[in-house]
């Protein structure tokens, strides 16, 4: 028997995996468009530290002279980006899932501790639910960024019809700069996200596809408490009582399962008994 947590609801997995190629296409077509007037750079005075983008970059990706193609892709896939994002927002709002994502009062301070932990400066990280404080800030921030991209994009796309929006954002040229900065932030988010996913390992990645976070078995828990606490992401050594309960419970289940084996009906009764048992557990963990 394995114990699992339903980590990612099906809807969130769909939003996530639709969003991934759609954002990729938006960034790509955005670069095809940006090339036609590539005036942004970081520097001071006459000194340029970083030019967006160097010619070698354009050449390597075969970007030049594809403005028309970029615009047609951008103004088609913008719908998927906006609609997918909007439904995701509604889903979070109405499912209550937002409570696991939106940062709370402690998040800012805790996020710093998470960063220290991730950089191996601190041994422990604050307790968390589905996401740690840094994740909460990042995942909420990226929703705000998405909204920002839609609004700045709209005011570059139709600056005369949406002139009020455009002037709130500082006018046409500022809106274009903001749209560009948001794109850079999206790509930085992507890089950090990929690194973190690789570091978090297979179980974490798998949960974004299957939805299930597979927990270590009761046996694993008894044998290697330190490794286990890391794997389940609680950053806490589970209380001994919990372990006992888990073990006992696993034995119960085994006994229960013997006669009928793994028919669906059995699985359901198991779920219920597990759920009840778990409520006790979570109150303990929440403390």
């Amino acid at each position: 028997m394995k114990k699992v947590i339903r980590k990612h609801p099906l809807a969130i997995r769909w939003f996530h995996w639709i969003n991934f190629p759609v954002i990729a296409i938006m960034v790509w077509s955005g670069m095809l468009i940006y090339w036609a007037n590539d005036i942004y750079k970081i520097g001071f005075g006459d000194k340029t530290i970083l030019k967006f983008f160097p010619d070698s970059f354009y050449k390597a990706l075969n970007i030049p002279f594809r403005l028309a193609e970029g615009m047609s892709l951008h103004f088609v896939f913008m719908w998927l980006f906006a609609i997918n994002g909007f439904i995701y927002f509604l889903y979070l709002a109405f499912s209550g899932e937002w409570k696991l994502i939106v940062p709370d009062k402690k998040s800012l301070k805790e996020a710093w501790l998470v960063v220290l932990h991730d950089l191996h400066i601190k041994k422990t990280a604050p307790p968390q639910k589905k996401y740690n404080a840094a994740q909460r800030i990042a995942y909420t921030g990226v929703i705000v960024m998405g909204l920002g991209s839609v609004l700045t994009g709209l005011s570059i796309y139709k600056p005369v019809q949406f002139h009020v929006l455009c002037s709130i954002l500082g006018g046409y040229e500022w809106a274009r700069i903001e749209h560009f900065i948001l794109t850079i932030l999206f790509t930085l988010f992507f890089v950090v996200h990929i690194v973190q996913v690789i570091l978090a390992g297979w179980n974490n990645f798998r949960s974004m596809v299957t939805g299930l976070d597979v927990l270590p078995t009761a046996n694993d828990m008894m044998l290697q408490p330190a490794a286990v606490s890391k794997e389940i992401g609680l950053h806490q050594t589970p209380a001994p009582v919990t372990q006992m309960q888990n073990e006992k419970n696993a034995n119960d289940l085994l006994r229960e399962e013997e006669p009928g084996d793994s028919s669906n009906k059995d699985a359901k009764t198991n779920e219920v008994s597990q759920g009840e048992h778990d409520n006790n557990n979570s109150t303990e963990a929440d403390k």
Partner: protein
Amino acid sequence: MNYKEEISISEKKLRRKTIVSFSIFILLMLSGIFLWKKLHQEPQIAQTPKTLRKVLNTNENIFSGFLSDQHLAKSYPVSASVKNVRVNGNVGMGNDFDPSTWKLKVVRNYGDTLFLTLDDIKALPKTEIIFDFKCIEGWSQVTHWGGVKFSDFAAKYNLNAQTKMNYAGMETPDKKYYVGLDMPSMMHPQTILCYEMNGKPLPMNQGYPLRLMTTVKYGIKDLKRIQTIFFSNERPRDYWYERGYDYFSGL
């Protein structure tokens, strides 16, 4: 939230669930790649895949709904306009052009063409627009233009029947550059037949003697050196549309 609700599941079932999930996942990713490839192999309309064209036309239907004579581009004071106005295109601006014999041709109907001199056009009330001109490449410039509102022009020359049609088309003398504009944009109060820049006659490279200037389109629609204006219910041919750009190109 029910997060953290633990469920027990047999290893066999977990394995099966994982395989099913990943199969669906990989299948979806592959079909995404397949659709992307297919999009690029699709028959093209004016150098753009059919499906993209369809959506762009839908975009036009949606966003042209916002276009209104009340939605004016922001006006700037004369002092805000630049002196060195960027010259960005010379298609249709060949050297074999004699301005002294130039007359604007307005095709009202088959066999009914109006010929007008620059003085005829200047005789109409002058409208000046100082606005943030926007190029489809992504740059913009506050520039100062003077001319005749096309709607005033149409009223003066009895183009009532013509302006009820869907589009107006314009071409250069050598017919190498040509554009089409939807009539609401053409009749917009900030669309002018332009003969002045910064208070002086249009320079040659800005389309002397007459060019179009509108706040509601990218610069690609502001045809320089207009020879012919005509009207149609179908889209007139359009130089940049044929090269893969959006026909509407409205702002």
